[in-house]
C-alpha cells in the first residue's frame, strides 16, 4: 500500500491512461472497501475483466509459434528485416498511445485571466467605469479619463494573463520535451541482430527481448520465458506478480500466461516475445480512453505563492477600504474616494509578478543542461530543500565501469591490469585452475558485444549487459580471444539469470569437447553463496575436498579483496554425470531438476568500480550544505565501507563502533557509542531493528552506510529518514526501487542504468547517473528559491513608493504625486526586465553552506522579507521619490509648504489663477502639466532607486563585491532597459499627454541618486551585520535576513 502514498508521477503523456487506471482501480477496489468483504473486491475485478474481455478480440495466444510467424510474416530467430519494419511502421504508425484530451486551452487561458491579482484589477477597472457612469449621469461632458483608466487596467489584466498563459504553455512544453528525452527503449531482433531501438518504432512481428525491470514495450506473445513474472496491476488490478510462460493456458487473453501487455512491467526473469499489437491497438490503448485526464497537482511554488498573493491582495483591499472610509469622512466626494481606492489597489498589486514563471522554466532548462531532467517543476524546488540523500553506490557514486582487478585461485591472489586500454593480462595463466576459471568466466555470462564493433578496441566496445558481466566479458575477451565464438561452441541449454534473492547466476552448457558428452554447469555469484553450494575446491587443476583450511584461505582472500572495496565473485562448476543427464535431458530452471550442491569451487575474481572523480567533492559540498549522504547498497559491507571512505561518505577521521573496538582491542559492546561517528548497518541487522532503533541509528550517526540491503529495506530507510522530518532524496535504478523512489520526497532515477519502472516512479532523472549532478540539482533548487525570493522582494519594494503618494495625497492634500497609469508603467514597464534578470543571478557563496530549507518553516515570502521590503527599503524609496517630486514643484514655484492642503484649489477646473509661493498665477492646464511633470519626476525617482534595489537584491547575505557586480550580465541589461524605457517615456513620448509623461529637466534624474546610494549603503550594512553576527537577534538574522 505504500505505493499509493504518493500519486504516481506522470512519466509521459502516453502512459496517462495506464496510470490513472491504476489509481482508480486501487483506490476504488482496495482502499475504500478494504474493510468490507473480499468478495466484493473479487467481484469488482471480475466484472472489470469481463468488461474488458468483451471488447478484446485477440486470438494470438491460441496460435503456435509457426502460425504466428506466418501471420506476422516474421521469423522468430532472425526477426523482421529493417525494410519490412519500416513499411509496417509507415502503415501502423508509431507504437505510442495517442495523448488523452487535455484541459481546453481556452479554459487554461481564462483561468489565468481571473487568477491571483487579476480579479483585483478587474474590480479596479469596473470601479473606474462605474465612476465614469456616475460622472456621466451628473455631467454629460465629463472627461473620459476614468474610462481610459478602466480600459488600461483591463488591458493590463489581459496582457499579463496572456503572458502567464504563454509561460505556462512554454513550461508545459519544456516538461513534455523532457519526457521525450527519456524514451523507452526496446531490445529487438531485426536482421538477425540484437538492436536497441526506441519503443515507439516497434511494429507487429518484431521479436523483442525483455528482462526484469523493463516495461513491456507493446502487447507481445511470449515465445520464450525464463522465470518471467510481470506486474499486471495497471491493467487488471492484480497486485501480485503474475508468472508468464509460453504456454497457452486460458481462452481469455487477459488470463492466459503467454501474453505480456503493453505498459505492464516485467518484475524478474527474462522473456522473448513477438509484438502482436502496437500503439492504440494494444489492450491498454483500447481502454486508455476509459480513464484519461491528468490530475493537476499544485506545485510547492504555487503553494508558496498563493498565500503571498492572498496577503498582498488582503493588504491592498484593506488599505484601500480604510482610506476610502478616511476619504469619505474627510468629506471627499464618494466619486473621488472611489478613484483613490482604485489607485491604492493598483499601487499595491505587483502586476509584474507573472515573471515568476519565467524563473521556473529557466531553471528547468538550466538543469537539463546539467544532466538533471526534471519531470515536474516542483521537483527542482524540493531538491533544494533536501536534507538527506540516500544514494546508491554503483554507477551513482562510482563510474559503473567495472574492471577486473584481482583473481584468486590456487590459494594465490593475482593482480590484473586495470588500466584504461589493457591489451593483455600478464599474470600466470599456466595453471589448470585458470583454464577452468576462464571457461566459467566466458560461459557464465549473459553480456554480449553489440554487433559491428570488431574494429573498436575491446575496452571501448559497447556491451549489452550489466556492469560486472561487461567487465568479465571484456576481461575474458582480452585473455581468451573471441568469447562469442567460445560460447557458440559451448551451446547453452539452460540458464538462471542473476537476481538479488538468489545472488548467483547459473548456466548449463554442452561442452566443446566432442568426446566429453557431459553437460558443464557453471555458476558465479556472491562468493559465500557459491561456496555454500560447493564441497570441493580446485587447486592447481585438481579437485580437492573443501575443508576448514581451504575455507579459511578462501575467507582470508575474500576479506582481503572485499576490504579493498572490490566486488568479489565466486566461480564454481560441475560436470554433470552423463548417466544421470543424458544429452537429451531437458533442464527446467523453475523446477531445478539438476544438482545445486557439491559443486567444485574454482576461484574468486574481484572487480573494482572506481569512484567518479567528481563525487568526493560533491559529498563535501553536501556536507557543508547540511545534507546527510547515506549510502544504501546491496553490496558487501566492506566494499560499501571502502567506497564510502574513498568518496568521503565516511570521512577520513571517523570510525565505526567496530573500528574503535578493533583499535582498542575490546569487545564491540564495550565501546562507547557516542565516540563513533560512522556506522555501517547491514541488511540483516536492519531486519532485526525496531523503528525506534532505526531512528536512533539515523539520528546518532552523521555518517551511515547501509550495506547488503534489499530494495525493500531501502523503503524502510527512507521512511526512517522521513520520520526525522527530513526531506529525503533517493536514487534508484531497479524495478524494486520504485516504491522507495515513490516514497521519497524526491525520487531520482538513473538515466543510463535505470529501468523504466524506476524512471516512471522518479521525479527526476539523472542523465549521466552521476552523483555530482544531484548536488548540482540541489544547488539549482536552492538557487531558484533564493532568486524567487529576490524577485519578489524587488517587486514588492516599490509598492510602498507607489502607495505613499496616494496616502499623502489624501491626508496632506498635496497635488497627486504619482498617477495610476504611471504606476502601471513602473510595474509593467521599467521593472519587468530587471525582475526577470534576477532569475539569472548566480548563487551566493553560502548557498551550499546553509541548512536545507525546512518546508513548513522557511516560507518563500516570510515576515522579514515583507517587513524589510516594505518598511525599510520601501520607505526609503518613497522618501527619495518625494524628494524629486518636491524639488520639481519647488523649482517651478510651489514650495512644499504651499503644497499642503492645496489639493482642492489645485483640482478646481475653473480656477485659472492659482497663486504659487512666488505670487505667480497658474491656469488649470498649466497646473495639470506640472502635475504630470511631478508624476514623471516621481517615476524617475522610483526608477533610479529601483536600480539600487536591483543591485542590493543580487545578494541576501554577501556583499555585492563578493558576489561581483558584473557576473550576472542580465542585471545590466535590466538596468539598461529601465533607463531606456524611462528615457523613451519622458523624452520620446513626452508630447503624448494621454500617458501623463512630460519632458523632465535632465538634472531631476539625479536628485534621487544620493538616496539610491543610501539604500545600497544601508543594505550593505545590513549584510555586513548579518555576516558578522550570524544568528544573533541584534544582527537581525531573524528580522533582517529574508
Amino acid at each position, binding site marked *: 500500500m505504500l505505493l499509493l502514498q504518493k500519486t504516481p508521477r506522470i512519466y509521459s503523456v502516453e502512459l496517462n491512461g495506464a496510470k490513472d487506471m491504476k489509481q482508480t482501480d486501487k483506490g476504488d477496489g482496495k482502499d475504500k472497501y478494504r474493510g468490507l468483504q473480499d468478495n466484493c473486491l473479487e467481484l469488482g475485478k471480475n466484472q472489470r475483466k469481463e468488461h474488458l474481455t468483451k471488447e478484446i478480440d485477440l486470438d494470438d495466444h491460441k496460435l503456435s509459434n509457426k502460425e504466428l510467424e506466418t501471420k506476422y510474416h516474421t521469423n522468430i530467430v532472425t526477426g523482421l528485416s529493417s525494410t519490412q519494419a519500416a513499411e509496417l511502421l509507415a502503415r501502423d504508425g508509431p507504437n505510442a498511445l495517442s495523448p488523452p484530451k487535455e484541459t481546453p486551452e481556452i479554459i487554461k487561458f481564462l483561468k489565468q485571466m481571473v487568477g491571483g491579482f487579476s480579479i483585483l484589477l478587474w474590480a479596479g477597472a469596473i470601479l473606474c467605469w462605474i465612476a465614469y457612469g456616475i460622472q456621466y449621469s451628473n455631467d454629460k461632458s465629463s472627461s473620459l479619463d476614468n474610462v481610459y483608466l478602466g480600459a488600461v487596467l483591463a488591458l493590463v489584466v489581459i496582457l499579463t494573463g496572456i503572458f502567464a498563459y504563454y509561460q505556462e504553455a512554454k513550461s508545459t512544453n519544456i516538461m513534455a520535451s523532457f519526457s521525450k528525452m527519456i524514451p523507452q527503449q526496446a531490445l529487438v531482433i531485426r536482421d538477425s541482430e540484437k538492436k536497441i531501438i526506441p519503443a515507439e518504432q516497434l511494429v507487429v512481428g518484431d521479436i523483442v527481448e525483455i528482462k526484469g525491470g523493463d516495461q513491456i514495450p507493446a502487447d507481445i506473445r511470449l515465445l520464450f520465458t525464463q522465470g518471467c513474472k510481470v506486474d499486471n496491476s495497471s491493467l487488471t488490478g492484480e497486485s501480485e506478480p503474475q508468472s508468464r510462460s509460453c504456454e497457452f493456458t486460458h481462452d481469455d487473453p487477459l488470463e492466459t500466461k503467454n501474453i505480456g501487455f503493453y505498459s505492464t512491467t516485467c518484475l524478474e526473469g527474462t522473456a522473448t516475445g513477438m509484438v502482436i499489437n502496437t500503439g492504440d491497438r494494444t489492450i491498454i490503448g483500447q481502454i486508455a480512453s476509459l480513464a484519461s485526464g491528468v490530475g493537476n497537482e499544485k506545485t510547492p511554488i504555487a503553494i508558496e505563492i498563493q498565500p503571498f498573493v492572498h496577503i498582498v491582495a488582503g493588504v491592498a483591499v484593506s488599505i484601500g477600504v480604510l482610506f476610502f472610509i478616511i476619504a469619505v469622512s474627510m468629506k471627499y466626494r464618494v466619486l473621488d474616494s472611489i478613484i483613490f481606492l482604485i489607485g491604492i489597489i493598483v499601487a499595491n498589486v505587483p502586476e509584474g509578478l507573472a515573471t515568476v514563471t519565467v524563473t521556473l522554466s529557466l531553471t528547468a532548462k538550466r538543469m537539463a543542461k546539467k544532466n538533471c531532467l526534471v519531470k515536474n517543476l516542483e521537483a527542482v524546488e524540493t531538491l533544494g530543500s533536501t536534507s538527506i540523500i540516500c544514494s546508491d553506490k554503483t554507477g551513482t557514486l562510482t563510474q559503473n565501469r567495472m574492471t577486473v582487478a584481482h583473481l584468486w585461485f590456487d590459494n594465490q591472489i593475482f593482480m590484473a591490469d586495470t588500466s584504461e586500454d589493457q591489451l593483455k593480462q600478464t599474470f600466470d595463466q599456466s595453471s589448470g585452475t585458470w583454464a577452468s576459471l576462464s571457461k566459467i568466466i566466458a560461459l557464465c555470462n549473459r553480456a554480449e558485444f553489440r554487433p559491428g564493433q570488431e574494429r573498436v578496441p575491446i575496452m571501448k566496445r559497447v556491451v549489452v549487459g550489466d556492469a560486472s558481466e561487461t567487465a568479465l566479458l571484456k576481461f575474458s575477451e582480452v585473455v581468451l580471444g573471441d568469447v562469442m565464438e567460445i560460447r557458440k561452441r559451448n551451446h547453452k541449454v539452460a540458464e538462471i539469470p542473476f537476481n538479488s534473492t538468489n545472488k548467483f547466476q547459473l548456466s548449463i552448457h554442452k561442452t566443446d569437447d566432442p568426446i566429453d558428452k557431459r553437460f558443464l554447469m557453471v555458476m558465479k555469484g556472491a562468493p559465500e553463496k557459491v561456496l555454500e553450494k560447493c564441497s570441493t575446491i580446485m587447486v592447481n587443476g585438481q579437485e580437492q575436498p573443501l575443508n576448514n583450511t581451504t575455507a579459511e584461505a578462501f575467507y582470508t582472500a575474500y576479506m582481503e579483496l572485499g576490504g579493498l572495496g572490490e566486488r568479489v565473485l565466486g566461480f564454481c562448476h560441475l560436470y554433470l554425470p552423463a548417466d544421470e543427464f543424458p544429452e537429451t535431458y531437458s533442464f527446467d530452471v523453475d523446477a531445478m531438476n539438476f544438482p545445486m550442491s557439491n559443486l567444485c569451487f574454482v576461484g574468486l575474481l574481484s572487480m573494482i568500480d572506481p569512484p567518479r572523480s567528481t563525487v568526493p567533492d560533491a559529498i563535501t559540498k553536501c556536507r557543508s550544505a547540511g545534507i546527510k549522504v547515506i549510502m544504501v547498497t546491496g553490496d558487501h559491507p566492506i566494499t560499501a565501507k571502502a567506497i564510502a571512505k574513498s568518496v568521503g561518505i565516511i570521512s577520513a577521521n571517523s570510525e565505526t563502533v567496530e573500528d574503535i573496538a578493533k583499535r582498542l582491542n575490546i569487545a564491540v559492546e564495550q565501546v562507547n557509542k557516542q565516540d563513533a561517528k560512522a556506522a555501517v548497518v547491514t541488511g540483516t541487522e536492519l531486519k532485526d531493528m525496531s523503528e525506534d532503533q532505526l531512528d536512533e541509528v539515523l539520528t546518532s550517526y552523521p555518517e551511515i552506510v547501509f550495506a547488503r540491503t534489499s530494495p525493500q529495506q531501502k523503503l524502510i530507510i527512507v521512511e526512517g529518514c522521513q520520520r526525522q522530518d527530513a526531506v529525503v532524496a533517493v536514487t534508484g535504478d531497479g524495478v524494486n526501487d520504485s516504491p522507495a523512489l515513490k516514497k521519497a520526497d524526491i525520487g531520482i532515477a538513473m538515466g543510463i542504468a535505470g529501468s523504466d519502472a524506476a524512471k516512471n516512479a522518479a521525479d527526476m532523472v539523472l542523465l549521466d547517473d552521476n552523483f555530482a549532478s544531484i548536488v548540482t540539482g540541489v544547488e539549482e533548487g536552492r538557487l531558484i528559491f533564493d532568486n524567487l525570493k529576490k524577485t519578489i522582494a524587488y517587486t514588492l519594494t516599490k509598492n510602498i513608493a507607489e502607495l505613499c503618494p496616494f496616502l499623502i495625497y489624501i491626508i496632506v492634500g498635496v497635488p497627486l504625486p504619482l498617477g495610476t497609469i504611471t504606476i502601471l508603467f513602473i510595474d509593467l514597464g521599467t521593472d519587468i526586465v530587471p525582475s526577470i534578470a534576477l532569475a539569472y543571478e548566480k548563487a551566493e557563496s553560502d548557498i551550499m553552506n546553509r541548512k536545507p530549507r525546512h518546508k*513548513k518553516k522557511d516560507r518563500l515570502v516570510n515576515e522579514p522579507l515583507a517587513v524589510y521590503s516594505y518598511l525599510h527599503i520601501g520607505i526609503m524609496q518613497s522618501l527619495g521619490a518625494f*524628494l524629486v517630486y518636491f524639488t520639481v514643484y*519647488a523649482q*517651478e*514655484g510651489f514650495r512644499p509648504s504651499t503644497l499642503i492642503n492645496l489639493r482642492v484649489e489645485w483640482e478646481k477646473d*475653473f480656477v485659472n*489663477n492659482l497663486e504659487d509661493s512666488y505670487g*505667480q*498665477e497658474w491656469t488649470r492646464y498649466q497646473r495639470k502639466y506640472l502635475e504630470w511633470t511631478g508624476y514623471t519626476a516621481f517615476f524617475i525617482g522610483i526608477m533610479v532607486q529601483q536600480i539600487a534595489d536591483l543591485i542590493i537584491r543580487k545578494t541576501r547575505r554577501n556583499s555585492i563585491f563578493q558576489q561581483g557586480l558584473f557576473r550576472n550580465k542580465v542585471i545590466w541589461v535590466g538596468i539598461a532597459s529601465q533607463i531606456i524605457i524611462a528615457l523613451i517615456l519622458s523624452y520620446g513620448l513626452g508630447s503624448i499627454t494621454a500617458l501623463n509623461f512630460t519632458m523632465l529637466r535632465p538634472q531631476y534624474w539625479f536628485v534621487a541618486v544620493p538616496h539610491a546610494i543610501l539604500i545600497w549603503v544601508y543594505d550593505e550594512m545590513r549584510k555586513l551585520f548579518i555576516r558578522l553576527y550570524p544568528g544573533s537577534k541584534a544582527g537581525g538574522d531573524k528580522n533582517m535576513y529574508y
Partner: protein
Amino acid sequence: MRRQLRSRRAPVFPHSYRYRLDDQDEVNQNYLADEEEEAEEEARVMVVPNLEEEEEEEEVKEEEEKDEEEGQGQPTGNTWWRKLQIMNEYLWDPEKRMSLARTGQSWSLILVIYFFFYASLAAVITLCMYTLFLTIGPYMPTFTERVKPPGVMIRPFAHSLNFNFNVSEPDTWQHYVISLNGFLQGYNDSLQEEMNVDCPPGQYFIQDGNEDEDKKACQFKRSFLKNCSGLEDPTFGYSTGQPCILLKMNRIVGFRPELGDPVKVSCKVQRGDENDIRSINYYPESASFDLRYYPYYGKMTHVNYTSPLVAMHFTDVVKNQAVPVQCQLKGKGIINDVINDRFVGRVIFTLNIET
C-alpha cells in the same frame, strides 16, 4: 530566569512539534517567535552552559507535549473555536505574556529600533530638503517655463464663464456688481496713492539692487478704468445692459512684454455673427497692459504689486441671445492658441443679456 537560560535550537526539531507544524501555522509562528525572543535574550546573557541548554530543551519539549494533549483533548468538531483561540492567543498570550508573538520587552526593543531608524531617515530627508531650499531662492522661482505663457482671468467671476442676467431684474446681476466692487477695493485711488508710486509709463519699472530688498510697486488706480471703475456708474453698466468685464493677465515673475509693444487685449465674437458685438470700449483706452507694471519681482519683495487690468465695456451687444466672446492677448511672447489650455493668452465667455 529560566527562559534566559534557553538558547536557540533552531536545528533541533523534536517530534512533538510535528503535529503543530503540520496543522497550526499560528502556533508555529508562536514557537518561532519564542525562539527569536530567546535568541535576543541570549545575546545579553552571554555564554550558556551546554548541559543546562539540553535540560531546557527537554523541558520545553514536555511543555509542548502537554499543550498538544490539551489541544487534542477538546472536541474536534470545534475547529472554528480552536482557530479563534489560537488567534486570540496570538494576539495576547497570557502565559508567556506575549502579544503578536512578541513579549513587551521585544516589542519595546523593536519600537525603539524603528524609532531610531525612522528618526534617522527623517534626519536624512530633512537634510535633503534643507539642501533643496538652499538651491532655491525665496524671491525668484528657479524656473518659470511651466507657468509661461501667461494665463488670463476675468472679473467678475462666479464659478462660471456664462454671464446671464436680465437688465430689469437687479437680482440677476447684483452679484456681479458686488464681486467687481470687492475686487476693485485694492485698486481704490486713495490706497494706491498711499502705498504705491506713480512711475513713468511706457517703460519697464526696473528696480536693481539686492534680491531681498523690498520692491516698489506702480500705481494702478481704479479711476484708470473710467466707466468701468464703478465710480460713476456703481452698477458697472449692468443696469443698462452694457456690462463691464475686467481682464487680468496672470502674474509671472520676471515676465516682460516686448519693449514698446505692450500686451494688448482684443475681444470678438468667438463663433457666429461678428456683428453680434457692435462695439466694445476698452479702459485704459490703449487696451493694453502698460510696460511699467513689469517686471514682477515675486510676492516676497514685491508686496504691494498691483496687477494691471483692462476693462472691456460691452456697450452694444445683441440682446436676448447668447454671444460667445473670446478675448485674446496679443503681443510678443504671448501664445493664445493652445488647444488644451483655454486660459492661456485668451479667455472665452458668453454674454446673454436679457431685457
